[in-house]
């Protein structure tokens, strides 16, 4: 009887050890991957000056396009499949970031608290 209990507990302990080591390993892997992504994608928060320059550039570009609608048309005609895919990916990223921000803002993972 005692030996059986001992066997059972030792098995449980070894299983727990295995599980914890696996969790540690995959946690490290995930952390490394996210670090790599952070570095490769340049995800560090931009400075205020960068914000300013990007938005002023975007404003100028949109003004230019608004003044010359034919240019927009030619641009749209010249767009490549790869570029389209790239911009689509960016759009999906933006949607993801917006969703994450919303989750933080409403302090709840799914749906809103008060209905």
């Amino acid at each position, binding site marked *: 009887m005692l030996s059986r209990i001992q066997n059972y507990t030792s098995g449980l302990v070894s299983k727990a050890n295995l599980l914890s080591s696996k969790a540690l390993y995959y946690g490290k892997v995930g952390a490394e991957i996210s670090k790599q992504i952070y570095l490769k*994608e*340049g*995800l*560090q*928060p*931009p400075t205020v000056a*960068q*914000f300013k320059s*990007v*938005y002023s*550039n*975007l404003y100028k570009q949109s003004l230019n396009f608004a003044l010359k609608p034919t240019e927009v048309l030619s641009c749209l005609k010249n767009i490549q499949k790869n570029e389209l895919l790239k911009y689509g990916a*960016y759009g999906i*990223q*933006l*949607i993801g*970031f*917006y*969703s*994450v*921000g*919303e*989750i*933080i*803002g*409403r*302090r*709840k993972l799914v749906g*809103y*608290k*008060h*209905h």
Partner: protein
Amino acid sequence: STVNVLRYSALGLGLFFGFRNDMILKCNAKKKEEQAQYEEKLKLVEEAKKEYAKLHPVVTPKDVPANASFNLEDPNIDFERVILNAVESLKEAST
């Protein structure tokens, strides 16, 4: 880079809108609850009024026929009715 700035802008926007929508919903829920409480109170008042009417039925003055004789010594005399009856009878007499 442009994309990074846009990404962080999206994050900020999401944060702002999530917080704002949360606040709006909170406010609406509070208002609704207050309204519900007020309506409950109103309902209670209505019920109390009904109960009071049941317990103290109002004695409606019976329709006294016009030109009926009246007793001025009566403590429950309805002066309004007496005067109106008198006016009516005067009108009838004049026409």
